[in-house]
C-alpha cells in the first residue's frame, strides 16, 4: 500500500521533527548546578525561593506566569540585567538587582539561570 504523503513531504516532515526536537532539547538543556551557583553568588535566594514567596515571588510562580509565552526568556533576562523596576506586594516599586556573572556580562550564564527559573 502506498502512503498518501509523497516521499519529499515525508522527508521534510521528519527533518522538521528533528529540528523541533533539537530546539526543545536546547530549551531544556540548562545546567542546574551552574544556575543554582549563580543564584547563590548573586544572593537571589535572599528574596526568592523555588517553592515559597519571600520578598519576591517563588520561582515556581514566576515559571507559571511565563509558561507558554514565547518571549519569556528574553523578558526575564531583561528583568534581571537591566535594573528594571520590580513591583512588590505592598505596591512599592524597586529596581531589581542586576545579576552579575564571572567573567562579567556572560550572556550564556544569565540565559542558563533564566532557563532554570522557567523550568520550576
Amino acid at each position: 500500500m502506498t502512503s498518501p504523503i509523497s516521499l519529499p513531504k515525508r522527508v521534510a516532515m521528519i527533518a522538521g521533527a528533528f529540528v523541533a526536537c533539537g530546539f526543545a532539547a536546547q530549551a531544556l538543556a540548562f545546567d542546574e548546578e551552574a544556575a543554582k551557583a549563580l543564584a547563590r553568588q548573586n544572593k537571589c535566594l535572599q528574596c526568592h525561593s523555588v517553592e515559597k514567596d519571600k520578598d519576591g515571588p517563588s520561582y515556581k510562580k514566576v515559571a507559571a506566569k511565563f509558561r507558554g509565552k514565547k518571549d519569556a526568556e528574553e523578558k526575564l533576562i531583561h528583568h534581571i540585567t537591566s535594573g528594571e523596576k520590580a513591583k512588590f506586594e505592598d505596591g512599592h516599586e524597586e529596581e531589581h538587582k542586576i545579576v552579575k556573572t564571572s567573567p562579567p556580562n556572560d550572556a550564556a550564564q544569565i540565559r542558563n539561570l533564566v532557563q532554570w527559573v522557567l523550568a520550576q
Partner: protein
Amino acid sequence: MDDDKPGVFKRLWTFFARPSAKYSVLAIASVFFVVGILFWGGFHTGLEMTNTLDFCTTCHEMRDTVYQEYKETIHYSNRTGVRAICSDCHVPREWGPKMIRKARASLEVWGKITGDIDTKEKFEAKRMTLATHEWDRMKASNSQECRNCHAFDAMSSELQKQTPYKKHMKAKEEGKTCIDCHKGIAHHLPKEYKDPDE
C-alpha cells in the same frame, strides 16, 4: 690559667648585669628610648608592608584565583572610587587581633612552601575549608573588618533600597552580623556551599 676563664655567655651576662659607672641613668634611658622607637617603627613598617595589595598578590596562589575574582566586585571598583584591599577585610586593625592574625598567617607561608594550594585544582579542592575558616573568624569578631567601614546606624532609609534596608534593620534587631548574609561578596563561593534557605 685559661681554663678558669668564664665562657662567652657568662662574660656577656656579667657585662650587662654590671651597673654602669660611666653613663648616667638618663643617658642610658635616652638611648633605650630612641632605639625603642626605631625598633617599633621598623617593626610596624615591615608589618604594614605585608598588608599591601602588592604583597598579597606576590604569590600566584592568591594572584591567579581570589584576586581575579575580587577584581570583578564592588570592593575593587565602584562609583565612588573607594577600594577595600585584602588586608582591609582579612587583617584586623586592632593591635592584639592583628598580631594573632599575622602569627597564624605563618601557616599560610608553610602552605606556600609545601605547595598546598599551588594549582587551581588544589585551590578549588580546599576553597570550602579556607572560606569556612575565614567566615568563622569574621563571625567570631562580629564582622569587625566589615564594620570598620559599614554600620547599621549609618544606613539611610532614603538612600538604601527599601528591601535591603528592611533586611538590614531586621538583621540588627536579631543580632546578626554582616558575614551571616554576605558570604562570597568578594570571591566565588565554594561549590560545596549551600544557601541556608535552600
